[in-house]
């Protein structure tokens, strides 16, 4: 079993949070995992991306040139990374902020949803990242939802844990969309 995913967007979209969550969940399931964030000089509004590798074997490289999955939340993220996805891989696109026509890849499985709107309908558009993570989990089944919930407990401080249920609901929404899309789940 081997999975890797690059997640990208701009700072403030919670890209690094869902990458961390996925990594914590993988650790909770006893898997090997690496989490590699981008970092830059300290500025607001810059790009944010991270790569998570999960395997039941020792992991070689935490850096991945051609990820098996790419999750993009913003236009610049799509243009920077879309060429890198492995042919036959998975591409998750946030059409709230990206014109579907900008997706050039035809050799990948595409899950394109207006994630901000979906999140807004649920409760708050800040949960768009969670819906995206749900799509990835629903499609790949790389870790279970319970492990993600465990990840929240690891990452969030006591006072922020009250938000866990609505975050989980957003992830579940994404998983449900992936199932409707007819993934191999």
């Amino acid at each position: 079993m081997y999975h890797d995913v690059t997640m990208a967007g701009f700072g403030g979209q919670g890209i690094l949070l869902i990458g961390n969550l996925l990594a914590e969940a993988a650790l909770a399931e006893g898997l090997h995992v690496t989490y590699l964030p981008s970092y830059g000089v300290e500025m607001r509004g810059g790009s944010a991306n991270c790569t998570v590798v999960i395997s039941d074997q020792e992991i070689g490289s935490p850096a991945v040139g051609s990820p098996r999955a790419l999750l993009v939340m913003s236009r610049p993220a799509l243009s920077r990374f879309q060429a890198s996805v492995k042919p036959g891989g998975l591409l998750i696109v946030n059409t709230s902020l990206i014109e579907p026509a900008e997706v050039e890849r035809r050799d990948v499985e595409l899950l394109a949803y207006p994630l901000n709107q979906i999140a807004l309908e649920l409760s708050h558009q800040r949960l768009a990242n969670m819906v995206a993570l749900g799509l990835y989990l629903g499609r790949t089944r790389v870790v279970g939802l319970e492990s993600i919930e465990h990840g929240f407990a690891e990452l969030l401080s006591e006072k922020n844990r009250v938000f866990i249920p609505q975050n989980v609901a957003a992830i579940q929404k994404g998983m449900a969309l992936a199932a409707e899309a007819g993934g191999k789940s």
Partner: protein
Amino acid sequence: MKKKLVKGNEALAQAAIEAGCRFYFGYPITPQNDIPEYLAREFPKLGGTFLQAESEIGSINMVLGASAAGMRAMTSSSGPGISLMQEGLSYLAGSEIPAVVVNVQRSGPGLGGISPSQGDYFQATRGGGHGDYRTPVLAPASVQEMWDLTFLAFDLADRYRNPVVILADAMLGQMKEPLEMRKPELPPLPAKDWILEGCQGRDKRLLKSLYLGEGELEKHCWRLWAKYEEIKKKEVRCEAYRIEDAELVVVAFGSPARIAKGAIMEAREQGLKVGLLRPITLYPYPEKELADLADQGKTFLVTELNVGQMVEDVRMAAGRRAEVHFYGRPPGAGSLPSPEDILHEIRETYPAR
């Protein structure tokens, strides 16, 4: 033991605490600020001293002072700051005062950039400052090693009364991996019978590097040489991964060794007999291990995040017996090679049979 997902820089900082270090002196520089920030938060709770110095020159000399008093002391920085510390490192080595200096490498020359780099290999492994001295150099390649090698660094520094460099890079500092917070079993250390704490009940002591008397400095340098020879004999560490049947051996340290390992796993799936020799100590260097592999007729591919530094040590160790190829990338945003890039080089240099 339960593992925790931890960032490399923070693993190193916590390991320093566990190793008994209570004195940190440093100056901010990307990409290692997690280390001083972590210790600035944790040391006050433990009665430790965190002090932000006026410069890296100040930092290394404060380390010298605290360490002269027998304390485990450290500093951390990156390229430009490490350059400023070279004077202090030379004095520490000459005066035989232990210290742990962490270089989370960023790219140079000059201000360069903040992306991962291995451009400081020569500086670290050749002593770096003026004079005829060396420092053990430890090169972690995982978050677990950021932890484990920090214990080793303090141990070696005290054992040999010499500064020890941990040569990490921005990728190792920023990435997270599961970490087992284990305490290594290390052999007992010699008593610190040289420290300065006031001369109550004994003769005064002096820690110095100035030797002006006829023959004094030569004798001192020979004694240091003997110490480095002992270090070379006892402290070489490296990881050999699938090299027994390998036709091609990739030689890499730090982050590129991880990327290469990913490439090697892929190459093996494609039926190529490729292995990895990863130096964990860059000084002392695993010369014998490389020479043995050269004797076995293996071909080498050296990969580094620079335009060719460690490759010189591989060529020296392998002599004329082996073919040594080099694939390097100068550091900079977007120049980190991917496993695919290295796999391509593996295919290009794989010996035809």
